[in-house]
């Protein structure tokens, strides 16, 4: 508990958290404010509204988590480790404390966004989406898997800054990019965490989207392009998330428990 408390203190005091969280909340408020102010025309039902309000939830949360947890382990391979790692505390405990603290902060942030989406929906429509409980549960699992994946990255690097940057690039840029390329190639990106995260917003729909949708467009000169988009099944998303969570934590622990502090940055 001492380590968890210290890590929570760390997040509370980081400039990152103080800057990123307000931006995250502002992003969550944009859609409700635009609808509330009449700038945008309200969707016909609560489901469309919630889908719109939670539209950027997954990518924003992934970015927030990468920024928060990107250096959770790598900070120990700087000079701070000369204190932390020489204490009679198992590295697995230190790692779990760091993961738990990062999870708590990311989860609170995600709950804020979902809360804003659901509450504004209730204010506008007098109802909330039927799947709100499932959305909360799966979003918690999603946050857990993103945190674990980012912790894995942070265990690979020595410098906190580089590990944050690489984590952000991988989960926020590389993964969506791969998804786009695979869509063009007609391959389901079922190994990508961000793909699994789509389950959260898909659950806002009245009827869950089809697993495969193909759109064929004809261009000039007889050229036709077929773009196949995939939507994860709920079970599939849960399996991917759980796999990332378990495998990432196991790998991170393996690396962290064996890593040596040869020199510090």
């Amino acid at each position: 508990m001492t380590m968890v408390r210290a890590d929570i203190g760390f997040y509370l005091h980081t400039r990152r958290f103080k800057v990123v969280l307000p931006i995250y909340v502002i992003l969550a408020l944009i859609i409700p404010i635009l609808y509330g102010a009449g700038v945008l025309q309200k969707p016909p039902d609560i489901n469309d509204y919630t889908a719109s309000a939670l539209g950027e939830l997954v990518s924003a949360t992934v970015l927030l988590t990468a920024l928060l947890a990107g250096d959770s382990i790598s900070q120990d391979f700087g000079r701070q480790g000369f204190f932390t790692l020489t204490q009679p505390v198992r590295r697995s405990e230190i790692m779990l404390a760091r993961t738990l603290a990062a999870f708590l902060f990311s989860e609170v942030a995600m709950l804020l966004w979902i809360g804003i989406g659901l509450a504004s929906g209730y204010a506008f429509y007098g109802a909330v989406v039927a799947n709100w409980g499932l959305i909360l549960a799966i979003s918690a699992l999603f946050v857990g898997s993103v945190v674990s994946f980012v912790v894995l990255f942070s265990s690979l690097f020595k410098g906190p800054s580089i590990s944050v940057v690489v984590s952000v690039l991988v989960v926020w840029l590389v993964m969506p990019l791969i998804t786009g390329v695979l869509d063009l190639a007609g391959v389901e990106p079922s190994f990508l965490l961000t793909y699994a995260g789509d389950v959260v917003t898909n659950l806002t729909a009245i009827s869950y989207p089809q697993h495969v949708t193909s759109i064929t467009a004809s261009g000039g000169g007889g050229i036709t392009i077929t773009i196949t988009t995939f939507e994860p099944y709920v079970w599939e998303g849960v399996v991917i998330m759980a796999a990332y969570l378990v495998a990432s934590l196991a790998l991170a622990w393996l690396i962290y428990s064996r890593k040596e502090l040869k020199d510090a940055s």
Partner: protein
Amino acid sequence: MELVADGLVKKLGTTTALAGVSFRLQGKGCYGYLGPNGAGKTTTMKLFTNLLRPTSGSATIDGVEVSKEPSRALKAVGSLVEEPEPYSFMTVHEFLEFAVRIRGRRVDASEIKGISDRLSLPRPDELCSRLSKGLKRRVFLAALLVQGTEILLLDEPSAGLDPAESVVFRTIIQELKKEKLIFLSSHMLFEVTQVCDRVTFLNRGRIVETGTIEELTRKYTSKALRIEFTEKVPTAALEQLKAQGALLGFEKEGERMCLVRFDGTEANRKHIVDGLYPMGIRNINDAQLGLEQAYMELMK
């Protein structure tokens, strides 16, 4: 209270940082670990604190092998290795409390205050991130004291301390060694002479000498004579003695003063004195060079 290094070897890439170091430190006292930069002192400290794992051999604390059961082995040990960084968002007081709690101990506010006063720490509500290098060092020393472990591993502990802080630090070590085992690495010979009971010399990853300060001082001092002549230093006579193998070398320390090195045997001592007596000797003494002399000899 026991620290045992048994054939410790540590390879870092292609470099062999430690090439089979063995020692056993038992009971209260302060044990110095001396050597030049790159000798392997910090590597040894890191092996005893689980920051590195040995390539072969073992580091054992109170019978528990560090690389196998680190959290159990480190229970008895407080360490200050290289230049640690406190949690920057914590205040000095919060960090000291954290240092106690992380060991599963209860915080004793009066103890923290006492140690803080003694080490003249900055205000308790001062953020650690705002402290100078020297003050951070003092905060870590305070953390070690509040943790109250039986064994202390101190790697160049007074690096970054100003002269006044160094004096306070040495006084504290002299008190602590009455009830704790302190393993202190340094290349500051004066500090080691002041606080350590026994010294181990390390060079290029190997132990080259071990003994009490007195033993080593005696051993290496007896290999040099400081001679004051009535006239100019008789260089020709000294060269002749050197050619005869009676002395190993000599260094002029002024017009009439000279330091003569020899193998320490009585026969050669007599040979040198007899050979130089006709040149007019005003004074002749065993050179009081102590640990510094030993260090210079051993690090050649």
